[in-house]
């Protein structure tokens, strides 16, 4: 999944012009920046923030889908869903590790998530009331994530770019799996098809919001583009997503809830593309600022898992210390 990691990113740097120019020259030569390389503080901070928020999105993203594991309607679907949610946790783990190469610990990042200081993708603050949502999340949400993440495979920061290669492969599998789930519903009964349509009606706009604000409103994008953390603008990626997705919806026999959606042959330099209606940005900012339907529940669930698990983590640490002490004692004897 993708996080709107650049919202409010602080790219300020205090390094000398010479240092910054040398760094920019490396970026322009498409050299990968590695953990021990010199880098502007603003570059490091921007990445810590973006990778951390991306990791948090994976972890919080386990909740809306985890909601259906015990209720999955067949054993095959149950196994696939379990494996998928497990993959999301795995993505969180690689991403936390990638962020740790920049000098921040997983514990620090977790505390920032739980205190509300660090954000995660707005999409996970919507509920998953029906089974069809498991298909829609795979198709639209993972589809939007892939659109965002494919360019991140070429991100200038080596550990992040490499993590993204594996993540994208798995996300692409999830997207096909989600789409296949929806095909089953659309080939099924009237109730199943209605369940699928209702789900798309709820997830379409939030999925478009995953690409972040319009370019004109996205204040920190320019520096990130220059540093090649980001390669395409929010609006470019959103347009690509819409153009790729509408034919897939048509194949399912489903519609997206946008009366203004229209094919425009002039768009994309004459290649054609879809014009779409205006996104409800008030809703977007409301959710980003913590007032979506599920924001409080998501953080509450993460806090509960973290707090209830404290004694387990303490015990693991205490046991490891006891073992190490016994070893030292044995060696001394």
């Amino acid at each position, binding site marked *: 999944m993708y996080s709107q990691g650049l919202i409010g990113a602080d790219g300020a740097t205090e390094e000398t012009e010479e240092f910054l120019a040398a760094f920019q020259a490396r970026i322009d030569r498409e050299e990968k920046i590695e953990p021990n390389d010199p880098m502007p503080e603003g570059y490091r901070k921007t990445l810590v923030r973006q990778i951390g928020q991306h990791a948090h999105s994976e972890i919080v993203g386990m909740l809306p889908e985890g909601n259906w594991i015990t*209720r*999955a309607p067949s054993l095959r679907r149950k*196994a696939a869903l*379990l494996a998928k949610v497990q993959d999301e946790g795995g993505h969180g*783990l690689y991403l936390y590790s990638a962020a740790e190469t920049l000098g921040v610990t997983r514990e620090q990042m977790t505390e920032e998530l739980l205190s509300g200081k660090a954000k995660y993708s707005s999409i996970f603050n919507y509920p998953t009331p029906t089974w069809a949502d498991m298909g829609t999340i795979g198709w639209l949400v993972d589809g939007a994530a892939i659109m965002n993440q494919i360019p991140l495979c070429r991100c200038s920061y080596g550990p992040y770019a490499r993590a993204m290669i594996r993540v994208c492969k798995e996300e692409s599998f999830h997207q096909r799996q989600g789409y296949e789930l929806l095909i089953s519903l659309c080939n099924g009964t009237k*109730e199943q098809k209605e369940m699928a349509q209702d789900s798309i009606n709820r997830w379409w706009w939030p999925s478009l919001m995953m690409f972040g604000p319009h370019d004109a409103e996205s204040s920190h994008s320019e520096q990130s583009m220059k540093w090649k953390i980001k390669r395409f603008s929010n609006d470019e990626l959103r347009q690509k997503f819409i153009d790729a997705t509408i034919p897939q919806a048509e194949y399912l026999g489903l519609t997206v809830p946008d009366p203004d959606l229209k094919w425009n042959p002039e768009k994309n330099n004459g290649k054609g593309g879809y014009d779409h209606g205006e996104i409800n940005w008030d809703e977007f900012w409301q959710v980003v600022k913590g007032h979506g339907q599920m924001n409080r529940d998501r953080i509450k669930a993460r806090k509960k*898992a973290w707090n209830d698990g404290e*004694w387990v983590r303490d015990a693991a640490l205490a046991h490891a210390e006891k073992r190490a002490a016994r070893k030292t004692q044995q060696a001394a004897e």
Partner: protein
Amino acid sequence: MSQALFNALLELGDDHLILGHRVSEWCGHAPLLEEDLAMPNMALDNIGASRNIYTYAGEVEGKGRDEDQLAYLRLDREYKNCLLVERPNEDFAHTMLKQLYFAAFMEPYWQAALSSTDETIRGIAGKAVKEMAYHIRHAGEWVIRLGDGTDESAKRMQAAVEEMTPYVEELFTMSADAKACAEKGILPDREALRAQWSQTISNIFDQALLDLPEVKFPQLGGRTGHHGEEMGFLLAQLQYVQRAYPGMSW
């Protein structure tokens, strides 16, 4: 024979499905991220084994029921899982101990089933035996860490031992169906696995500084469909979509 084998397979399939269901409840809520990955793994192993077992049970029965019809569309009294696996997760100590108790039984069970007279059983056992060895290792390491960790973890671990141990006996109990299958060499004799189970557990408990209590009043009933109160809620979740939208493909 086919009726006895069918019933004995349901005992096995239900044990794996219901335990898999319980451990899957942790996914996304574990004490640390590594366990958020490990627990779905164990759930997948258990649910995967149940799929193989139900599919074979459906073939043995010969009425055209598939894995989902057997997993989802029976009434509570028709589930034959032992009471141990349906017990609620409680805390991480209870969950890991339940996983260990079950795996310490199933590993030698599948080991013995590798020489079954039935080819399909040998196939299922070949895959499951490796998974159960891993579950013993994973859950066993946690039981040791928690038993010999902090005062709180030791207290919680011992409480889990007191609470879960009375449910162990049912793993060894032979139903008439299980006996009939054991006599033909199709499925292992459960009774014969006591020594191996005790050996595995006492090795782990020695390191975990835990005592295995003597059980005067074992809790039995699952094999005859006499489940606890929590089982109805588990089935309500498991069966929800299949019951609300009957006869559809998913």
